[in-house]
């Protein structure tokens, strides 16, 4: 690309960013001539350069926009519409520039539409003839500063003048333009001597004059010059350096640091070395140099915020909200690489706050707040990290809605949610595909967004957290490292080799030894660790990397002795087992050779102080590799957003495999299991003829798979814990085998109580256990609230129940009875399926449901000519003669108590066969 063109592009992009911000400021403060002058000048510069480079389209738009702004300067009132128009022409310029950058050619096309609008706006608002408008008072400047500004400017100012003047004419056509050109030159070059006399000093706006003065000649310094000039008009003390040069410098300094470290290591081994003193000096200089070079890469975070005022302004217009954007700590610096990466997530979050967080002025007034909402952005340093907060004073997150959405999307089960704090639930907004916006707006609410934000922040080793108070607002806190070039790592050993693990992902270290509290246990062959009531999936680093110790004097260590590095990646927590942990070291990450880059387990390599090369473990790579392995009950729930849907469609379902009673594996749907626990036999107490354990502060009854079997008298017993509505029971099993994701296809029914039938799971015949059989053994009234079973041909059955527990339960149960089951959580959803043209042979509905209850549901169906033939059964915990009568009236074909499984099956059989009989 042409140097000139490249220079132009860089410069123009910067100018445009500044203009964006300034315009928004100007709109709020239309009387500030200083801002206007600045905008005017920037746009003018763009126009001038475009003409010079032969870019007629850009020039024409810039010119029209400038004309309009000229009117502002002449005292035409500044309206939001006019500002919007100018902003949209800037957008057009931006898109043209972007294309120019890509193709090195100005794209063809016409901007007549925009230009006409601009011209019309300019004309309608023009109070006087263009020429007459020429000398606007605020531009004038008094002597003292001028003297200073003049000298350097004079010469270069002239050049600019020519540059701008000449292309103007060929670029456009009419006399009109010439006239304008005249006007502009007058306004534009007030610094030129000849203008001074004209405008004696009515307004003493010295700083503004000074600013223009400082800037005019040095176009390339525009944005930087602003602050510079404001500080005192000294010609700018900055130079433009290409990023490559800086990167190279940084690399070289990194090398220097490494060499220094090696030298220090050597000297450490030699007492009384004469190198000691000079080396100390070298060390200090190196450290300073490193710091200095790091500084050159640092940029104020304000650069990433530059676009936000404009974004917020557009949003406030679009959404009809009054929004004030406060920015604190713009000067906080961070590495430019990080800055680039954080830009988009930040913009998205601010949009989100404006769209979802803040209320409309009416709503705000109603809740006693000022009409104007505030979004506050702040940044500050904290121990090698930069903290960015985005806070709004809006309505706060609606935890109930999030909870509901989590259930709908199957991100977690009800029982899991019950155990979570509000903060934890709120964090679900970062889950993929999650959006609580009631309606999809232009701004956000497309269900992409917060998860992308989180992914981006994770990618640079950052974290994001949120706090919310209903009615008072929400604040997001982002914590990111200052730089990606230097990383603090933990040096560990596995199979005789050393590896570096980035500290940021390390949560804690646990020493694992057999016979201690922290010992590695196994579920089948999967190692796990019990850590504070949670089951932590483990992986041996050496196994993950497929390495063994090959040195001759390798000690054979017991496999389960070692250190567990507990890591948190995204929302995945896991433990990495290593043989030893050495120390932490700040390392300079070096990219890996292209021949090694395909190995996802490593993110780079580096040279340690002792001169050896070490591989840097990529926590994301490990998390990915683990993805298939890790599934504690909780995690399986979080993992798959489509899990619930899949279950409704009777596709794959997570099954927990275990052994109990016999050698054959048994299975239950994982979603039914709340937790997996293990108790030592001594803890089991006997009371009132049954076994109990103390669990979470209350007594939990234990149910044995087979009452006949010999119970263990020592050791510990694994059990599946089922919870519903605050009650728990433990189903004691012999061994937990695995968690698998498989299609549940019960092939052989069972006559035996407690077994639904047999299915092939993981290519083994597996008994699918009917949890419904065991639950009443713990609490006889377990099903007073809900539940049941069935038998028939393959008929389609619609099951409506608001409790996920029973929906999950019934899937397999009804399927075992030969029905093709579709479960929905509300009558409304059920009706929607009918509307969508789905056919069902029979409907089973709960009675007590929110919104539309079972009676209403039945009435609607029975009134519909097309559906009135479909038999519909009521399932309810309340079985009084009155309620049964009410059910009959509503049109239910039968009314069955929830605990009466046999009754339900019989009823289903009856209604489906009679229905068949009639139809035949």
């Amino acid at each position, binding site marked *: 690309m042409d140097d000139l063109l490249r220079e132009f592009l860089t410069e123009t992009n910067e100018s445009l960013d500044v203009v964006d911000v300034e315009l928004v400021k100007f709109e709020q403060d239309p009387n500030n001539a200083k801002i206007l002058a600045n905008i005017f000048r920037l746009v003018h510069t763009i126009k001038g350069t475009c003409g010079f480079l032969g870019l007629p389209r850009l020039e024409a738009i810039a010119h029209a926009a400038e004309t309009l702004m000229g009117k502002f300067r002449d005292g035409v009132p500044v309206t939001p519409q006019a500002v919007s128009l100018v902003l949209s022409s800037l957008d057009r310029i931006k898109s043209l520039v972007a294309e120019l950058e890509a193709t090195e050619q100005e794209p063809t096309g016409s901007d007549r539409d925009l230009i006409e609008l601009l011209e019309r706006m300019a004309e309608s608002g023009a109070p006087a003839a263009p020429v007459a408008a020429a000398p606007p008072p605020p531009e004038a400047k008094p002597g003292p500063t001028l003297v200073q500004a003049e000298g350097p400017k004079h010469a270069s100012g002239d050049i600019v003048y020519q540059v701008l003047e000449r292309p103007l004419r060929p670029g456009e056509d009419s006399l009109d333009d010439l006239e304008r050109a005249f006007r502009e030159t007058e306004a534009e070059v007030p610094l030129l001597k000849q203008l001074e006399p004209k405008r004696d000093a009515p307004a003493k706006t010295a700083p503004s004059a000074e600013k223009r003065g400082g800037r005019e000649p040095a176009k390339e310094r525009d944005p930087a010059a602003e602050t510079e000039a404001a500080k005192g008009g000294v010609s700018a003390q900055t130079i433009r350096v290409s990023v490559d040069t800086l990167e190279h410098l940084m690399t070289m300094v990194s090398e220097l640091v490494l060499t220094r470290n090696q030298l220090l290591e050597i000297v450490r081994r030699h007492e009384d070395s004469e190198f000691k003193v000079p080396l100390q000096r070298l060390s200090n200089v190196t450290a300073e140099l490193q710091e200095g070079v790091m500084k050159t890469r640092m940029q104020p975070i304000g650069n990433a915020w530059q676009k936000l005022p404009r974004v917020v302004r557009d949003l406030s217009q679009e959404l009809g909200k009054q929004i004030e954007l406060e920015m604190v700590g713009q000067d906080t610096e961070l590495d430019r690489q990080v800055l680039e990466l954080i830009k988009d997530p930040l913009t998205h979050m601010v949009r989100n706050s404006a769209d979802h967080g803040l209320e409309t002025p009416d709503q705000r007034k109603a809740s006693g707040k000022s009409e104007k909402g505030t979004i506050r952005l702040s940044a500050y340093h904290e121990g090698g990290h930069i903290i960015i907060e985005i806070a709004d004073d809006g309505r706060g997150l609606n935890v109930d809605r999030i909870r509901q959405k989590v259930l709908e999307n199957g991100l977690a089960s009800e029982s899991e949610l019950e155990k979570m704090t509000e903060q934890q639930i709120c964090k679900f907004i970062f889950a993929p595909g999650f959006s609580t916006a009631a309606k999809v707006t232009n701004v956000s609410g497309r269900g992409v967004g917060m998860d992308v934000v989180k992914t981006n922040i994770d990618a640079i080793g950052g974290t994001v957290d949120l706090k919310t108070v209903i009615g008072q607002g929400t604040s997001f806190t982002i914590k990111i490292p200052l730089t990606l070039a230097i990383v603090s790592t933990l040096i560990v050993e596995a199979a005789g080799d050393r590896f570096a693990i980035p500290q940021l992902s390390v949560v804690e270290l646990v020493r694992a030894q057999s016979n201690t509290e922290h010992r590695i246990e196994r579920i089948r062959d999967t190692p796990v660790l019990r850590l504070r009531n949670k089951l932590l999936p483990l992986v041996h680093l050496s196994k993950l990397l497929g390495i063994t110790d090959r040195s001759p004097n390798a000690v054979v260590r017991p496999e389960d002795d070692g250190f567990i590095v507990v890591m948190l990646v995204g929302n995945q927590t896991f433990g990495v087992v290593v043989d030893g942990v050495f120390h932490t070291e700040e390392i300079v990450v070096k990219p890996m050779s292209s021949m090694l880059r395909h190995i996802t387990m490593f993110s780079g390599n580096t040279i340690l102080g002792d001169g*050896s090369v070490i591989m840097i473990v990529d926590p994301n790579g490990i998390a990915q590799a683990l993805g298939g392995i890790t599934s504690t009950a909780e995690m399986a729930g979080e993992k798959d957003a489509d899990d619930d849907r899949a279950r409704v469609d009777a596709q794959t379902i997570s099954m927990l495999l275990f052994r109990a009673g016999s050698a054959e594996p048994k299975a239950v749907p994982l979603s039914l299991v709340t937790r997996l626990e293990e108790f030592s036999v001594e803890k089991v107490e006997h009371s009132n003829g049954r076994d109990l354990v103390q669990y979470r502060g209350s007594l939990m009854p234990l149910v044995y798979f087979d009452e006949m079997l010999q119970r263990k008298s020592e050791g510990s017993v694994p059990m599946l814990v089922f919870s519903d509505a605050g009650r728990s029971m433990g189903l004691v099993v012999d061994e937990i085998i695995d968690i698998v994701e498989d299609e549940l296809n019960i092939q052989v029914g069972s006559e035996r109580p407690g077994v639904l039938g047999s299915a092939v799971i993981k290519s083994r015949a597996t008994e699918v256990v009917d949890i419904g059989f065991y639950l009443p053994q713990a609490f006889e009234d377990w099903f007073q609230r809900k539940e049941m079973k069935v038998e028939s041909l393959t008929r389609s059955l619609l099951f409506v129940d608001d409790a996920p527990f029973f929906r999950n339960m019934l899937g397999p149960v009804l399927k075992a009875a030969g029905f093709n089951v579709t479960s929905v959580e509300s009558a409304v959803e059920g009706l929607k399926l009918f509307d969508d043209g789905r056919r069902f042979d029979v409907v089973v509905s709960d009675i007590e449901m929110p919104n539309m209850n079972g009676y209403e549901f039945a009435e609607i169906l029975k009134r519909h000519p097309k559906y009135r033939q479909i038999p519909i059964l009521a399932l309810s915990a309340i079985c009084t003669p009155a309620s049964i009568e009410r059910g009959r009236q509503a049109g239910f074909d039968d009314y069955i108590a929830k605990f009466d499984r046999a009754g339900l099956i019989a009823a289903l059989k009856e209604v489906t066969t009679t229905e068949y009989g009639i139809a035949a």
Partner: protein
Amino acid sequence: MSEEITSLTDSVQYVTVMIGGQLFGLPIERVHDVFMPESITRVPLARGEIAGVLNLRGRIVTAIDMRKRLHLALRQDGGQTMAVGIEHKGESYGLLIDNVGEVLTLPTAGREPNPVNLDQKWAAISGGVHRLNGHLMVILDVDRVLGGMAEVLAA
């Protein structure tokens, strides 16, 4: 690339190396260093030919086990391995070899194409053969030695 240039001149200088009893020659302008590799860090999950990474005066160098690259048996004599440092596409590599010999200046005219019956794996990385007194020297085409590895990766 380098060969086209060198073929225009009358002679080429080769650094000779021994790998598994065979004499190889590397064009001298491709050879940046000859060094004794120390403390190679193995890289788990990398391809077999990659012996690991090592620190050569502050640069991280990827070490390629040439015996494995040439599908030769592992070295049994326990002698000190040597390495030839080369650059390829802006990255540093070290080719692990058995011994380094003298530098030979050989006439371009004396270079002969690979025998048609040469093992395909060898032919793929050989830039021709020189007949010397008493033995043959195979020209190692550095770009193909390393480029071939990258290709397999991309596939």
